[in-house]
């Protein structure tokens, strides 16, 4: 039980996929202009992460034992199908969100955080339950990072930013500041 809790806290804060391990940065910079879009993309990502965790575990346990060299190809097929599924669901039930997310919804396929999750899960030999907790932690961590970024960007929308830092410049500064703030969790759990 404490192991599961630790996996959750570790992926949520200590090894946050976005702010500490720098995975999945394209949507972190691309879709964080508005907070409503940002956290919904985070949840869509979380859902894909969950599906990926389940299928990666199934593949690892029943199929890939005989052919480990097919791992990355198999994972990418799984991720792409999961994203297709999410895309259909979002288009049907949340058409506004579908338009807001635009290209970033199908781009979840190429979000390295998701392939990263499948590969980490494999190399750390997580069981199904551990993998699910890992996926939820990672997904909520992504959602947290996206929402923090979006809320800060909304706050500085009216700021009189120097010309050199307009658009992406300041966003990169925010990202590095956030990342420095997360450094405080470094090494948590290793202390006596």
């Amino acid at each position, binding site marked *: 039980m404490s192991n599961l809790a630790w996996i959750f806290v570790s992926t949520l804060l200590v090894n946050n996929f976005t702010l500490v391990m720098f995975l999945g940065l394209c949507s972190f910079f691309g879709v964080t202009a508005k907070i409503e879009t940002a956290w919904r993309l985070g949840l869509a990502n979380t859902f894909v992460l969950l599906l990926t965790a389940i299928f990666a575990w199934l593949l690892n346990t029943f199929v890939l034992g005989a052919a480990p060299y097919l791992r990355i190809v198999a994972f990418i097929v799984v991720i792409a199908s999961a994203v297709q599924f999410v895309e259909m669901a979002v288009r049907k039930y949340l058409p506004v969100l579908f338009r807001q997310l635009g290209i970033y919804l199908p781009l979840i396929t190429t979000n390295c955080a998701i392939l990263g999750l499948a590969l980490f899960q494999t190399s750390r030999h997580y069981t199904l339950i551990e993998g699910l907790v890992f996926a939820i932690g990672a997904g909520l961590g992504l959602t947290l990072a996206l929402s*923090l970024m979006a809320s800060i960007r909304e706050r*500085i929308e009216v*700021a009189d930013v120097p010309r050199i830092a307009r658009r992406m410049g300041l966003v990169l*500064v925010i990202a590095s*500041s956030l990342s420095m*703030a997360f450094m*405080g969790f470094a090494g*948590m759990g290793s202390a006596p």
Partner: protein
Amino acid sequence: MSAAVAPALVVTASPHVRSQDSTPRIMWNVAATLVPIIVAATWFFGVSSLLVIAAATAGALATERAFGRGGTLADGSAAITGMLLGLTLPAGLSLWMAALGGAFGIGFGKVVWGGLGQNVFNPALLGRAFLQAAFPVAITTWPTVGGRFWTLKGDLFALPFTHPLPDAITSATPLGLLKFEGKGTAIEQLILGNTSGSLGETAALVILAGGIYLAWRGYLNWRIPAAVLLTVIVFSAIVHAVDAHRPDPLFMLFSGGLMLGTVYMATDPVTSPVTNRGRWVFGAGVGVLVVVIRIWGGLPEGVMYAILFMNALVPFINRATQPRLFGTRLGGAT
């Protein structure tokens, strides 16, 4: 027409009653309360502390002058950032590192965001976090207190990017002693500040006095320090009661940078919430994170990271604690 004739009827928009306080006035008042802390640091660590604080302040001021909007030097906020950053540094830090920290804090913590009032993170702490990431060894080399006044506490005048010579007597901070060696420190020593640590970490009483003065003048909101300190006391008392090996609340309260961070950095009006309910939430969050990082984290001290993390949450807190518009119905429906 002479301009000296007073108009018979003055028509202006509200507000009609104005206080004498302006941003420069408040800022220089805060800066004045930092002077006793600097004096105390000089008393404990000698002339080195003055040099380090001066270098950090010079870096901050030069950056504000070079890249900030014209005339923002006089409002005093860059000077405060520099002095506060200097107070979070060890006495033996090379001066160019201190100046670089000040420049980073102002440049990337304030000017890039659009100047005073726009930044989300506390500039002094951002500069400190940058130095911690860039020079992790130099910034955790803590000279001991005492010694002769004019003795330099380290290789202060090292050239940039050279290896500073370790020529000072150093010792671990109380928090480091506790975390890595399991040793406690007497509480009288902590309160008086007779321990090694950052320049402004040591004089808890002087910092508290400055904070009380500022709160009485209304220049800082008392809710934030009250929330931080209460949370630290209650949370660490619970942890101490469950596991007696953990530090007791008094130790937690008077060790490390908690006092300086609580009084001068968490209360930064730019980077803290604007609602009173939000201030309580913010302070409580800082308190919880300080205890969590100190007890379960890999680092001995977590005040800086706790405040930076809560700074990032401030836009959220502001949104969540927005007061209800007068006349609208509870629950958000109009």
